[in-house]
């Protein structure tokens, strides 16, 4: 009887391992596929979308540098991301801290208003925001996209921080206050470091949100030197034609920095997690 259970359990573990492994493979597949498909010609691609390139060529990458203005697109995307992401992290951490730790009047309403930000389809705000920015003279500027990118990424991040900080014992702060720590010091030097595990998640999400954003970048800026990478990517399609493999090479160019950054961050996530565990 006992032996029988352990066998099913063993089978169960093997099965779970296999399922998780298959899922991981499927997660890896698109990136591998993009990489090798970008080395094909359009002709070869139209014959089979899945086959390995018979004679790999870099022609798509060479062409990509002649499409639109890739240099300024990379610069714009990188600049937007570098400016907004730290601001998103700090703003959402602060609000998340207030929400999880401090009781004040209007907190419920404020939370609801931030929650609303997660529920609005961004296209609903495209025209209003354009009108508003036009009126304020904020259109077509190097920094035009900063405010929308912060504001649209903050709600999700706030809720992540909020839930994470709720899980941290209040005794830590109480002890800090006993030692004479100020409010600012407690928030930034005591609690902020503990939030590292969730911070990495927030960082990655904000990077993605900023890096991949399309609609605002399209509408709020019109000068070609302010175009970001997602706008640049559309230049592979004309009204009636699309350069498929060229576009895939473009996708590799735009996705690779993020993937590399994730691989970098993933280490931080793990160290952060152990840090979090130790503190517990």
């Amino acid at each position, binding site marked *: 009887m006992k032996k029988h259970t352990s066998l099913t359990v063993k089978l169960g*573990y093997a099965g779970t391992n296999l399922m*998780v*492994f298959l*899922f*991981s493979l499927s*997660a*890896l597949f*698109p990136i591998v*596929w*993009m990489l090798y498909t970008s080395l094909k010609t359009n002709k070869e691609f139209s014959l089979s*979308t899945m086959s390995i390139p018979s004679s790999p060529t870099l022609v798509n990458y060479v062409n990509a540098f002649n499409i639109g203005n890739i240099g300024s697109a990379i610069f714009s995307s990188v600049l937007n991301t570098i400016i907004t992401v730290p601001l998103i992290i700090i*703003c959402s951490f*602060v609000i998340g801290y207030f929400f999880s*730790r*401090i*009781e*004040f009047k209007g907190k419920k309403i404020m939370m*609801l208003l931030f*929650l*609303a*930000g*997660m*529920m*609005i*389809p961004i*296209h*609903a*705000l*495209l*025209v*209003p925001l354009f009108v508003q920015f036009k009126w304020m003279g904020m259109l077509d500027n190097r920094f035009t996209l900063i*405010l*929308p990118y*912060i*504001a*649209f990424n903050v709600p999700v991040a706030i809720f*992540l921080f*909020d*839930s*994470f900080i*709720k*899980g*941290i014992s*209040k005794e830590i*702060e*109480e002890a800090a206050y006993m030692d004479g720590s100020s409010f600012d010091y407690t928030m930034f030097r005591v609690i902020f470091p503990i939030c590292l*595990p969730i911070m990495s*998640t927030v960082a990655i999400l904000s990077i*993605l949100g900023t*890096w*991949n954003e*399309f609609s605002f970048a399209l509408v709020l800026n019109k000068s070609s030197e302010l175009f970001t990478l*997602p706008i640049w990517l559309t230049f592979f399609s004309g009204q009636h034609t699309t350069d498929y493999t060229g576009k895939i090479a473009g*996708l590799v160019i735009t*996705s690779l920095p*993020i993937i590399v950054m994730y691989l970098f961050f993933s280490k931080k996530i793990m160290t952060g*997690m152990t840090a*979090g*565990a130790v503190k*517990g």
Partner: protein
Amino acid sequence: MSNSRLFKLRAGPAFRYLVPIFSVYAFTVLLPLLISMYYSIHNEGSTKFVGLQNYIALAKDNDFWFALKNNVIITIFAVIGQVGIAFVIASFFMTKLLKLEGFHRLVIFLPVVLAPVVTGYLWSLIYNYRMGVLNWLLNLFHIDPVLWLDNPNYVLYSVSVPLVWQYIGLYFIIFLAGMQNISKEVLEASEIDGATWFKKTVYVILPLLKNVMNVALILCITGTLKIFDHIYVMTGGGPGRSSMVMAQYAYNNAFTMSRLSYGSTISIGMLILCAIIVLAMSRWIGGEAEK
């Protein structure tokens, strides 16, 4: 007792942090939302006040309710698929039974990194009738190819899969971060008691993760109810209206049909419905966790 004094809002921090950040948010999100509401109670071109006429039209609009139904179906898939699978995988990580932990942890998150447009584009190739991987696999078993994205009977399921697939990694990471916060002693204690994986997960981990679970569900539901990019790229809501979702319907009205005020009405309608669903769910799950 001293807690309540320590954790009370004081003027200094409020003015230093709360007010400026909230003003930026209000200016960039709430004000446009108000303008959008203004559009929705005016006629096209905003020349005349029409009251709730657009909302009445929306309530009678079959296509909108059909899109909502699709949204709800996709959301149910997403909750079970994304949050459910992610939680199960994350709980495996708390046991010592999974092989290649490092590899999984690294790779499961990768799809999240892809832009939604890339995911949609990629899956439309996977679903391709003639050259897609899926029909190629079916062919190996001598099964007739399937029109994954053309058949109105299952296009909705076809478009849900990539969505679920892409974001499992996100919830996985969120759960993992939350689980690392559970003290080792509690887990070890339960192991000494001889709890199985299932018991440990349901009776020990899950109650401790109530907050995280609540946030994950809110993220998942709000994200899926306003889902747009994936479907826009794969089917555009088609064929016909088979895979139409609310955000796509609002987009079509505002940007393809030049009906901005009706498009705004749909978006506000979405916001209201979404708020009702989320608040109801939040109350149902998080009762005492909210305090």
